[in-house]
């Protein structure tokens, strides 16, 4: 089999084309959002919201409403409940997050178990990349484009919010609105990504690409390019590997992301554990030679 055949053969199937389009869209949107999440320190919040949307999506399915609507309602409900538990009791934030999102996630699982046509809904939990319909793909692309559009149009405001919310407030912007917008986009993104990798693994796409890019550059504008490019490549690689190795596609995509992170963690020239050392040795040798 020639390398070209290796790449082209899976594309002969419609379901693989849809899977590829879905996973690349999800990978890009998640990766762009992840750049802010890792800098604000919202990784755990990403974990919480992406899990907590489950009952919202299930209920939306039951009443025939758009998944995105249910996700946003339950995303904000989760954030609100976390705030209430943290502010009105002696429970610390990490515990509040853990309590709220696992309870909402459990509610989703219970709802799935009592609602007929379980097969469809179980796919929400683990993803069903190979079973994505054209309608699913259309929804993913519309939500993806809207989310990405808002993120990129307001990227400078979000970066200011992440870096110095007090200054944002002092110059007349509203940090609360900016934070809430990011959380709403987080809920929307979860809907996009759960088609690809499932609710359980969405958080991987929401953290790993941003963290990887953060180890590669000191410029936020470059992070916004590096993260989605690496994430899209990881999605394509993971999907091909899962096709040829006959493994779970969502799991494979996340695994590739993890491996890429590990390589960058070790060998990034500026911030890698080994790369930093090699770089400074090379500089010392050059100094000695001159």
């Amino acid at each position, binding site marked *: 089999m020639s390398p070209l055949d290796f790449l082209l053969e899976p594309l002969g199937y419609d379901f693989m084309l849809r899977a590829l389009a879905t996973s690349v869209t999800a990978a890009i949107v998640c990766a762009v959002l992840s750049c802010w999440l890792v*800098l604000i320190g919202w990784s755990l919040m990403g974990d919480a919201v992406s899990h907590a949307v489950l009952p919202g999506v299930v209920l939306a399915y039951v009443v025939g409403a758009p998944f995105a609507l249910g996700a946003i309602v339950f995303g904000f409900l989760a954030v609100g409940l976390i705030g209430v538990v943290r502010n009105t009791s002696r429970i610390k934030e990490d515990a509040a997050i853990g309590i709220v999102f696992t309870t909402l996630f459990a509610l989703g699982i219970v709802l799935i178990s009592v609602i007929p046509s379980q097969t469809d809904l179980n796919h929400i939990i683990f993803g069903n990349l190979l079973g994505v319909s054209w309608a699913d793909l259309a929804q993913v692309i519309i939500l993806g484009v809207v989310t990405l559009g808002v993120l990129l*149009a*307001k*990227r*400078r*405001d979000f*970066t*200011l919010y*992440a*870096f*110095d919310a*007090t*200054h*944002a*407030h*002092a*110059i*007349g*912007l509203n940090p609360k609105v900016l934070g809430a917008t990011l959380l709403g986009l987080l809920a929307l993104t979860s809907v996009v990504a759960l088609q690809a990798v499932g609710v359980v693994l969405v958080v991987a796409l929401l953290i790993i690409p941003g963290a990887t890019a*953060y180890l590669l*550059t*000191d*410029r*936020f504008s*470059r*992070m916004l390019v590096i993260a989605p490019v690496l994430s899209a490549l990881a999605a394509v690689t993971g999907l091909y590997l899962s096709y040829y190795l006959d493994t779970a596609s969502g799991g494979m995509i996340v695994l590739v992301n993890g491996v890429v992170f590990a390589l960058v963690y070790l060998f990034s020239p500026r911030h890698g554990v080994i790369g930093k050392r090699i770089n400074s040795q090379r500089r010392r040798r050059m100094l000695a030679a001159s």
Partner: protein
Amino acid sequence: MNGGGDTSQQRGGGAAASAPAISVQNVTVNYGTVRALENVTFSLAAGRVCGLIGMNGSGKSTLFKAITGMLRPDHGSVTINGGSPALARKAGVVGYVPQSEEVDWAFPISVRDVVMMGRYGHMGFSRRPKSADRAAVAEALERVELTDLADRQIGQLSGGQKKRAFVARGIAQGATILLLDEPFAGVDKRSEATITTLLRQLAADGATVLVSTHDLNALPKLADDAILLMRTVLLQSTPTEVLKPQNLARAFGLDVSRAGDDE
């Protein structure tokens, strides 16, 4: 020209007739059951540097938050140039230099980009910089002598340079009210002198500068006025008066009967 002068008493501010630049009236702030500020009242005239003196936990940072409006007082009110803080914020009048601990120094952002954030209030929906914004940023960087370091990541500056970068942000913003929370903490003496000169020049140009500081020795060189804070204003006067041992003793809790009877 009174920037960089040596004694504090003869330096005067303009704007005596108009509304004070900052006016804080009977401000009380509670965090749950803890009272952070009680009945704080003072006002500052334009064109002057005021030092804010008090020990840790005396409410200095809370007072800054109340002035920027980040925090709504439980009682009392703050006015800036005679109007509401919200109006002043919209007008881009208020510049804030955060405490070092509040800043993520590993954030992937250059010095120039930090200063550019001062311009966001002047920009459109997507905050795309125009040539006027770039010029204002270049000028501000020049003024704080960071032009050569503008493309460095913000964390790669020295302590004093970091502070100057944030002051430059306020300059680029065109802020006439500058609030600095502990700008001299972790800053070497030379940088402290540079920043002091810079703040005096900004005040000479008409800005109102409120600086919280622990460095009592440098206070007379820095400030025209000083406020002694211990959850409430114990004293507002000249630096020399505020630095008298009996006054400092009250602010730093040596006089137990006074420091403890707030509740």
